[in-house]
């Protein structure tokens, strides 16, 4: 049951995600990924997806789950290591990959969400990334034209939301999530905690509610750690 922007289930919140859709997905490595929405997409079986996300999970968690079931046609990412399924599908030509420098990827998502269709960046000049791209000089230095990204759906993981969709992120799980939230025709947010309107301090809201169309509350977050590093007491 849907109440305002708040959906009762992940199946309901992702019901209209169609075959061939472009999804912009938050997270860095396995940190701050919308793990419950990804599972819902796997269960739904939607295919031929183009996924814009900094990474592609690991073999058996995160976006790696959608690789295993061959639901992803194309990845737009900055770093896709740590994933053997990905490696196999890439080498066999089953999956298309567009590698984008991380800062360029972040700015393309930010720009897309901010109504900026393109921008010039120094990143990638003189490298394979520059091939086929317009170049322009400003003050004697060369820059590349890069294009903004808007997805059919943006999928975000936040820590807390209020019922209007104001969002707060926790520590480094913020990463790509706030910009991803701006870059979907429809933005779906999964949260650990849903609070009433007025409970979040307006001074501390990271993403204003205007960007968010759907909210779902997740439970039993796994939050898998890729590299557990500790110091001795």
């Amino acid at each position, binding site marked *: 049951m849907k109440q305002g922007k708040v959906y009762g289930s992940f199946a309901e919140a992702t019901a209209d995600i169609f075959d061939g859709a472009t999804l912009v997905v938050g997270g860095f490595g396995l940190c701050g990924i919308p793990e419950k929405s990804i599972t819902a997409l796997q269960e739904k079986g939607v295919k031929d997806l183009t996924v814009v996300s900094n990474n592609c999970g690991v073999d058996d968690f995160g976006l790696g789950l959608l690789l295993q079931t061959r639901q992803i046609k194309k990845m737009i*990412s900055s770093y896709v290591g740590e994933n053997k399924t990905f490696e196999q599908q890439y080498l066999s030509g089953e999956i298309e990959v567009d590698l984008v*420098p991380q*800062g360029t990827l972040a700015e393309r998502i930010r720009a897309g969400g901010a109504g900026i269709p393109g921008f010039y960046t120094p990143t990638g*000049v003189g490298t394979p990334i520059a091939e086929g791209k317009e170049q322009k000089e400003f003050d004697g230095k060369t820059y590349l034209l890069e294009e903004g990204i808007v997805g059919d759906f943006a999928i975000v993981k936040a820590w807390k939301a209020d019922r209007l969709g104001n969002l707060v992120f926790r520590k480094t799980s913020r990463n790509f999530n706030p910009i991803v939230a701006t870059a979907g025709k429809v933005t779906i947010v999964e949260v650990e905690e849903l609070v009433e309107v007025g409970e979040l301090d307006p001074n501390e809201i990271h993403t204003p509610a205007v960007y968010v169309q759907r909210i779902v509350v997740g439970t039993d977050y796994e*939050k*898998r750690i890729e*590299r557990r590093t500790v110091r001795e007491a």
Partner: protein
Amino acid sequence: MKTTREIIIERALQEIEDGMYVNLGIGIPTLIANAIPDDMHVMLQSENGLLGIGPYPLDHEVDADEINAGKETVTAQSGASYFDSAESFAMIRGGHIDLAILGGMEVDQNGDLANWMIPGKMVKGMGGAMDLVNGAKRVVIIMEHVNKHGESKVKQACTLPLTGRAVVNRLITDRAVFDFTPDGMVLIETLNGHTVEDVKQVTEARFTVSPELERVTVGE
């Protein structure tokens, strides 16, 4: 005897000054963080959205929501801040980071760097490296001088796909330190008992020897 890694880390540490904002790349550069003396105040930036990386957490402090760019669990030091990825690269690309120390596969005499892919083998991606080399105020590359076949990684021209063109300010290997200047590549130090002659023999790149180094060498 010191390992090549220890020699490189020890020398790279000298690049870091009190009060700097520094980004350390994944791998060996990350290890430099542990060698920074406690009385030196440095803010380490992690491109996933943390300025002010603290030490690794104690076992009970481990938090899946607090990692560095190498996906390791970390802590935040006093005075740290969190931010999103666009903000992180505004900091980097906008020239607000004083120093980036990154690993390399090849560096050439023009200051070109290759460190993100080997054609025909797996391509993992460039992550934030291309932005860092174009945006940080100063770029220092650390790498072993020769590969496992004994061939020079310090080239006349990089053979691997580039990360950036003319972006390296200083190269530190286990045998030498080079600067990239408007007048070309200059050998400024030799390390670990190597002579200028030794370095010339294992370096494919063409370089000059700094006058100060010549003096030291002759004086010995």
